């Protein structure tokens, strides 16, 4: 056996330590005789009568091993061991012609022995560490077991789900619904949004029976605002959107938050000239629109917010800022007196306290309240005076309008001289004129038409008097003169067909003049009557007297009413004069 083999067992020289034994002591038998195979079966084995019970009064026996070498023999044993190692190394060197053995083998032997001692120490340390870890684990388990009992002592003996889960689950849904509204502007089915706060809740928004929005009652300026003083109305009641049934408030914390975000995003999106982005303008319109739903307002704000690239932290800060401003505004008005009597009471209390600052503050508040009340009274007085004046004006306007309508209608529908009657009479006269056999019949046939045209003395040989010419004006008067000339020319004899045709043309001209006269008068009266519009006033159509058209669609004739078309006087050797 090579002694430099690390796996080699050291020599057992424990027998040397026995005081009564020498190196030539009896050697132990290397192998004990094995029992017969039949004796190895359980049935043939000897009964185990070993008492393995634990006796706590007796200490446990130590581990079995070689008898330790003690006393002066230890030195002798060490010397003999060293000599044996040296001789073994020398023998090895001789046997291998110096390749192995010698002093290096001796040194290697002692190095191996040292390494074995280190390994044994390390193994012992690891064993201690493992034992310590196990002890720590045991202690930890025991502690945890005790803590479990203590924790369960904080809960009821019988527990159901409501003790731990129901409210948490409900709050989870609420949180999810709120998050959906805040990030997408949508709410799940069966959920609603408070238009004042933007708070999402389960169920439908309660709508009052009168159809107004629930939040409208708390809107500033509403009629429910208490009066500053009895009999004094601080402001006009809210009108318009409150009664629509779908209106949402245009103020409140929710709208303030949206506006705060729009302001911040609007600054980011302004162009070089400082103009608002169209998206921002549209969003502002939606947020300010009382008919917009909270979802629409939130979605409009989200679109702007995303376009501006506002982060969640920025939006959170803006929201907090809006809340803070609202709180400050609320706090600024909190504690202020609502009436003069309250202000006087606060001033009296301050004077009683003797605190100059408090007195000055209360005095200032009272002065402000007094001034406000005085202003309110003055406003109310002015309002009443203005209302009275407005009522008078309204009554006058109504009278003017009524008169204008009546006069205008008379121009067109008066049974004696109205345009409708004139048109009917002229048409009837034209048929009779065509059947006249002589000048007398012609003159007689014209008489009814002359009456409705306003000619008073048209009869027999007198025809139309010069006075009538003057009264009829230059345009119509010339027609009368022409008519007189034709009738005089015809005399009592037969009337030429051309003359009859010319008479009918003159009648048409007279009717057209009547129409133009009535039209001009109507246009003037309608324009002068407040509240009346040419668009809503209808008169006979100039191209078809049987039809109606609105006044504004008839073109205004120029002052120079020169007739157009062929000159009717040419066939008689004359010519048309400028009128």
């Amino acid at each position, binding site marked *: 056996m090579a002694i430099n083999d690390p796996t080699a067992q050291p020599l057992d020289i424990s027998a040397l330590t026995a005081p009564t034994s020498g190196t030539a002591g009896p050697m132990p038998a290397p192998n004990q005789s094995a029992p017969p195979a039949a004796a190895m079966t359980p049935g043939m084995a000897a009964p185990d009568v070993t008492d393995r019970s634990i006796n706590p009064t007796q200490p446990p026996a130590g581990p079995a091993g070689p008898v330790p070498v003690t006393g002066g023999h230890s030195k002798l044993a060490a010397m003999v061991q060293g000599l044996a190692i040296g001789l073994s190394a020398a023998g090895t060197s001789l046997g291998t012609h110096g390749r192995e053995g010698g002093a290096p083998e001796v040194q290697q032997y002692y190095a191996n022995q040292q390494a074995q001692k280190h390994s044994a120490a390390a193994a012992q340390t690891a064993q201690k560490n493992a034992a310590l870890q196990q002890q720590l684990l*045991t202690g930890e*388990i025991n502690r945890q077991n005790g803590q*479990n*009992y203590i924790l369960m002592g904080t*809960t009821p003996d019988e527990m159901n789900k409501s003790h*731990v889960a*129901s409210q948490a689950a409900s709050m989870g849904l609420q949180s999810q619904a709120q998050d959906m509204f805040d990030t997408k502007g949508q709410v799940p089915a069966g959920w609603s949004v408070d238009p004042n706060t933007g708070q999402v809740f389960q169920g439908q928004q309660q709508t009052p029976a009168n159809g107004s929005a629930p939040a409208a009652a708390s809107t500033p300026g509403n009629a429910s605002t208490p009066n500053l003083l009895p009999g004094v109305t601080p402001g006009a009641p809210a009108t318009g959107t409150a009664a629509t049934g779908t209106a949402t408030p245009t103020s409140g914390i929710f709208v303030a938050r949206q506006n705060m975000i729009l302001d911040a995003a609007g600054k980011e999106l302004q162009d070089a000239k400082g103009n608002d982005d169209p998206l921002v303008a549209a969003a502002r319109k939606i947020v300010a629109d009382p008919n917009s739903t909270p979802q629409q307002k939130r979605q409009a704000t989200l679109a702007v917010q995303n376009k501006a690239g506002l982060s969640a932290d920025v939006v959170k800060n803006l929201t907090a800022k809006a809340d803070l401003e609202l709180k400050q505004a609320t706090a600024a008005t909190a504690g202020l007196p609502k009436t003069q009597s309250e202000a006087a009471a606060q001033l009296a209390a301050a004077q009683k306290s003797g605190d100059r600052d408090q007195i000055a503050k209360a005095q200032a508040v009272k002065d402000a309240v007094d001034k406000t009340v005085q202003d309110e009274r003055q406003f109310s007085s002015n309002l009443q005076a203005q209302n009275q004046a407005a009522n008078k004006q309204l009554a006058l306007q109504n009278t003017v309008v009524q008169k204008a309508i009546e006069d205008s209608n008379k121009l067109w529908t008066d049974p004696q001289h109205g345009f409708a009657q004139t048109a009917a009479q002229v048409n009837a006269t034209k048929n009779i004129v065509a059947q006249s056999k002589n000048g007398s019949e012609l003159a007689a046939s014209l008489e009814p038409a002359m009456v409705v045209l306003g000619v008073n003395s048209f009869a027999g040989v007198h025809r139309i008097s010069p006075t009538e010419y003057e009264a009829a004006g230059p345009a119509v008067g010339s027609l009368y003169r022409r008519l007189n000339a034709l009738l005089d020319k015809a005399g009592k004899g037969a009337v030429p067909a051309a003359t009859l045709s010319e008479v009918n043309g003159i009648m048409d001209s007279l009717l057209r003049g009547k129409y133009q006269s009535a039209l001009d008068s109507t246009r003037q009266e309608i324009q002068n009557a407040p509240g009346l519009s040419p668009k809503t006033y209808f008169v006979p159509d100039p191209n078809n007297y049987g039809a109606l058209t609105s006044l504004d669609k008839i073109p205004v004739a120029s002052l120079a009413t020169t007739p157009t078309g062929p000159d009717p006087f040419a066939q008689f050797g004359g010519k048309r004069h400028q009128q």
Partner: protein
Amino acid sequence: MATAENILQQKAAQSDAPAVPVQPPVPVQSAAPQPDDDSTQSVSDEDAVSGESVNLQRAYSKLNSAIAALFDSLGVRRTATIPHVAGENMTQHLQAIGSVLPAIGGVTANLLTATHTKHDPNGGATIAHPAAKLRSTTIPKNSEPAKAAVAACRNFVNKAAFLLGDDDPTVKIAKSQLDLIGKFGMANMTGFDSGVALLSVPGPLIQAIAKAHSGTKDGGHAPHLRAPRK
């Protein structure tokens, strides 16, 4: 000198329940389930949660009782059985345990199990088994006490799942751990490892339940369970 024997004898004199420092192992047959005992396999997991409410303290007490019965069935002798003395509170009982433990190797040398005063038919006790002996003892195949201990643990986990919901992370972990531990009836596991495993599974569940229930108190998250404020 205050030895463990002296202390336990003093406690025995104060209590009606017998206090024996070293009791012989309880035979397996003596660990038969009580009429209301759902800690064994005689009660299926489906029956563990059958009503509107659950009793976690009773389930945990039966889990401890089943583990102690398992240790006893392995032949590991108890180092101490510290019964609950009628009238003493938890602090006093812990003080009694603290007095006994130094005499039997300390809290790190013994694995403790404890049954509930109210839910244990014997009035509740804290039982110590030597950790070293448990580490050197393995559970044989088809051990009924081992199966009963796993069933008791599963019973507790199911009750906790009833309260927390199956989707709760702690419930998922506990069920996975229990499936791993009880796959083969804990055969060939050491007694110590089985006890540690079964006692470790309910810990996070109890913490989660206690945390959730703490929300029902003033300032918590369940205002509907609080008394109305004035």
